[in-house]
C-alpha cells in the first residue's frame, strides 16, 4: 500500500464528555472539503480521483460532488465518487484506491470528525480483505432520510460487533474502527467512516504489520496492512475547543435566498474564484464588465488566496432568522490581493474577533433555503497560541 499522507480533523465546537461536534455551518461536505483541502495544500499531489465516504450524507442525491469538486478547484477530468457507509465503506474505499486517489471520510454531527488519506503514485497492494455479516442491521435507512432504529445497543454489541470483530481479527495486532472495542487501542472521535482513517493513522506510524477491522451495524470488513507504511500524519483542527455551539436565534422564519441567484453565484462562490481583467483588476464576486476599465471580463475564474485579515468586523446581537446569535460578520482583506470578501466569522463564538485578526477562508454552509444548502466561504480566525 502506498499511502502518502493522512489528515485527521476535529471541528472547533465542544460536545458532551469532551467530544467535538460540528457547527451549524458544517456538514459532511464542508468537513470533507476541510481535510481534502489540507491534503492538497500541504502535499500538492496530482489527483485523479476523489472518493467521499460518509454514512450521514447531507445531500445524498444532490450536489455534494459539484460542491466538493468546485471547492477543491480540481481539474474537471478528476473523477468523483461518493460512497454511502461508515467505517467498512471507508476501508473498502481504501482497499480499492488506485494511485492519485484522495479518500475523504466525514462524520458530521455530535460527535464529529473527518479524515482524509492520500494514495501515492505507486500501485496499491492490499490483497487480503475479509468480509463478515450476520445480524440484520439494527439501524436502517428506509426510503426517506430518517433512520429507523431497533434500539438495542446490547444486541448489536453481542450479536453484531463482537462476533464481527472476533471473526475478522486474525493473528496480527488489530485496531477496530466503527465501534468501541476493549480489544483495540484506537480512540477515534467518531464511529463512522472517518474512524477507519483515524485507525489508519494509528497503524501507519507503527513498525509492525497490523489489521484494521472496520465494523458497522453488525457487518464488517478487515484489511491486513504491511509494516512500514510510513505515511505522514497531519493533525488538523483547533487544538483548543471554542466551547459549545452557539444557539440559533429563536426568531421564526428564514432569510429569503433565491436558489436561482445561488446557482448563478455557484462557480465563484463555492470555488472562491475571481475574474482577472486584462487591466489587472480582479473582480469578486464575478461580473460582466470590469469596474475599473469597463472591459468585458472573462468567464474563467482564477483561485483567490484563502488567507487574509479582517479589515472590518461587526457582531450582530439581535435575533436574525436562522442565524446563531451573536454572530460576527467581517470584511476580509486577502493576502497578496486587492480583493476583499464579506464573510461570516466561523469556528469561534460571535464577538471575539477584532480588526486586524488573521485567519483563513473555509467552505461552509452559509444558509439554507427551503432546506437546500447554500455554500460559501467563512472566515476562520487563526488559533491564538
Amino acid at each position, binding site marked *: 500500500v502506498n499511502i502518502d499522507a493522512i489528515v485527521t480533523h476535529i471541528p472547533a465546537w465542544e460536545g458532551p464528555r469532551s467530544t467535538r461536534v460540528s457547527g451549524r455551518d458544517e456538514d459532511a461536505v464542508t468537513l470533507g472539503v476541510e481535510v481534502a483541502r489540507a491534503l492538497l495544500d500541504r502535499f500538492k499531489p496530482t489527483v485523479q480521483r476523489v472518493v467521499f465516504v460518509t454514512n450521514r450524507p447531507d445531500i445524498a442525491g444532490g450536489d455534494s460532488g459539484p460542491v466538493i469538486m468546485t471547492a477543491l478547484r480540481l481539474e474537471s477530468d478528476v473523477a468523483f465518487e461518493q460512497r454511502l457507509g461508515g467505517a467498512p465503506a471507508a476501508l473498502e474505499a481504501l482497499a480499492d484506491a488506485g494511485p492519485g486517489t484522495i479518500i475523504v471520510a466525514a462524520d458530521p454531527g455530535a460527535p464529529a470528525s473527518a479524515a482524509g488519506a492520500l494514495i501515492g503514485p505507486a500501485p496499491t497492494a492490499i490483497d487480503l480483505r475479509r468480509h463478515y455479516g450476520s445480524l440484520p442491521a439494527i439501524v436502517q435507512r428506509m426510503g426517506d432520510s430518517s433512520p429507523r432504529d431497533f434500539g438495542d445497543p446490547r444486541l448489536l454489541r453481542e450479536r453484531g460487533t463482537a462476533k464481527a470483530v472476533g471473526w475478522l481479527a486474525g493473528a496480527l495486532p488489530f485496531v477496530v474502527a466503527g465501534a468501541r472495542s476493549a480489544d483495540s487501542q484506537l480512540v477515534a472521535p467518531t464511529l463512522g467512516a472517518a474512524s477507519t482513517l483515524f485507525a489508519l493513522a494509528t497503524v501507519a506510524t507503527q513498525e509492525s504489520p497490523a489489521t484494521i477491522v472496520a465494523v458497522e451495524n453488525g457487518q464488517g470488513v478487515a484489511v491486513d496492512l504491511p509494516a512500514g507504511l510510513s505515511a505522514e500524519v497531519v493533525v488538523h483542527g483547533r487544538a483548543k475547543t471554542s466551547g459549545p455551539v452557539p444557539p440559533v436565534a429563536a*426568531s*421564526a*422564519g*428564514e*432569510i*429569503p*435566498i*433565491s436558489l436561482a*441567484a*445561488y446557482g*448563478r*453565484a455557484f462557480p465563484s*462562490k463555492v470555488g472562491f474564484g475571481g475574474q482577472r481583467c486584462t487591466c489587472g483588476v480582479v473582480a*469578486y*464576486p464575478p461580473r460582466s464588465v470590469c*469596474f475599473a476599465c469597463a472591459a468585458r471580463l472573462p468567464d474563467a475564474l482564477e483561485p483567490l488566496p484563502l488567507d487574509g485579515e479582517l*479589515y*472590518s*468586523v*461587526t*457582531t*450582530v*446581537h*439581535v435575533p*436574525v*432568522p436562522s*442565524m446563531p446569535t*451573536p*454572530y460576527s*460578520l*467581517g*470584511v476580509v482583506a486577502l493576502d497578496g490581493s486587492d*480583493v*476583499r*470578501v*464579506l*464573510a*461570516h466569522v466561523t469556528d469561534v463564538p460571535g*464577538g471575539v474577533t477584532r*480588526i486586524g485578526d488573521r485567519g483563513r477562508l473555509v467552505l461552509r454552509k*452559509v*444558509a439554507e433555503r427551503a432546506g437546500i444548502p*447554500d455554500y*460559501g466561504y*467563512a472566515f476562520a480566525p487563526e488559533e491564538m497560541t
Partner: protein
Amino acid sequence: MREVAVVGAGMIPFGELFHLGMKEMIPDAVAAAIKSVDKGIERSEIEAAWLGQFQTSDGFSAGILSDYGALPNIPVTRIENACATGNDALRNAVHAVGGGYVDVALVVGADKTRESSTTATFWEWMGLGRDSAWDFPVGLVSPASFALHVARYLHETGATREHLARVAVKNHANAVSNPYAHFRFAVTLQQVLDAPMVADPFGLLDCCPQSDGAAALIIASRDVVDRYTDRPVWIRGFGLGFDRVMHGTKADLAAFPATRRAAAKAYAMAGIEPADVDVAELHDCFTGVEILSYEDLGFFEPLTAWKKVEIGATQLDGQIPVNPSGGLKAKGHPPGATGVAQCVEIVEQLRGEAVNQIDGARWGLTHNVGGPTAVSAVTIFEAEHV
C-alpha cells in the same frame, strides 16, 4: 433651467401608526402641505406628482396617491432609491419644474415599515431589497451594513462608543419638542452606552426606530411662485451619488463615498461651500453614520469629526446645528418619507418657524445615505429673505 422653490411643506407625526395605512397617511401629508401654502393652492393647480416609497404596502402606491390623494388628473411617478428615496423624489420633481414641463409639482414620501411582524415577516420586507446570493444569506442586515463602516472608523480614529452616544443624546433632546417625532424623550449618555447591543458598535439607542409616516412638499417655478408665497425656499443644489454595492468592493469603509459624490454635485450647483451651511438634516439611521457624514459633507476634515462631537459642534447652539428635528434617530425613519420630512424641517428652519429654530438660517442641507451604503442624495436650500 428655471429656479424652483418650495412653497408648501407638511407631514404627519411619525411613529408606529398601526391605525393608519398608506391610504390615510398619504392624503394627510398632502393636506398638510397644501394647508401650509401661504396664499393657498387648489388641488387643480398641481400638475404632476412624485411619490417616494421604498417598499410597497397597501397596494399600488402611485395609484393610491392619485386616488386617495384626490388628484385623478395628473401623472404620478413612484421613485425608489433605497434610503435616498425621499430626496431623490424631490430631485426628479425639480427636473420637471426646472425644465419647464410643469409649473407646480407635488412630492410625497411615505412608507409603512410596521406593516409586518418584527419577529418574522419584517425579514421578508427587508430581504426583498437585498442581494440574495452573497450578502443577505451571511446575515448582512441593515445595522451590520452600517456597523462595518463605523467599526472601521473607530479603528482608524480612536473614537469610542461614547462619541456615538453623544449623537443619540443630542438628537433625542432635539426631538422632545418636535410634535412630529416618533421618540419624544431624552436619553442620557449612560443609557445609550448601557443599552443592549444590536450590531457592534451600535447599541439599541444608537439605532433609529422603524417608523411609519408620510411627508409632502409643493414646489413651484419662479414664474408662478408669487401666486403662492412671498417667502419661498429655493432649491439651489442637489446631487445623487453612488458607491460600490458590495462591502468587499468598497475602497474605504471609514467613509461613505456616495455622500461625497452627491455633496460635491450639490455644492457646485448651489455655488456654496460646506462652511456656508447654517443648518442640516443628516441621515443618522445609526449614530455613527451621522459622524461619518459630517466629514463626507465637508463640515469637518476626514477622521476628525469625532473630536468636534466632544465639543458639541453640531448641537443647536453649535458651529453647525445638525438634526434639529431629532433626525432619523429620534424623529423616525419611514424610508420613503424620511428625506421629504428632512426637507419639511429645513423649509421651516429657513422660514424661521421651526420648533428648534436656528436664528438667521439662510442655507439648509438635507442628506440621505442608504441601500447597502451605496446611494446618497443631498439637497441644498436657500431662504428668500434673511
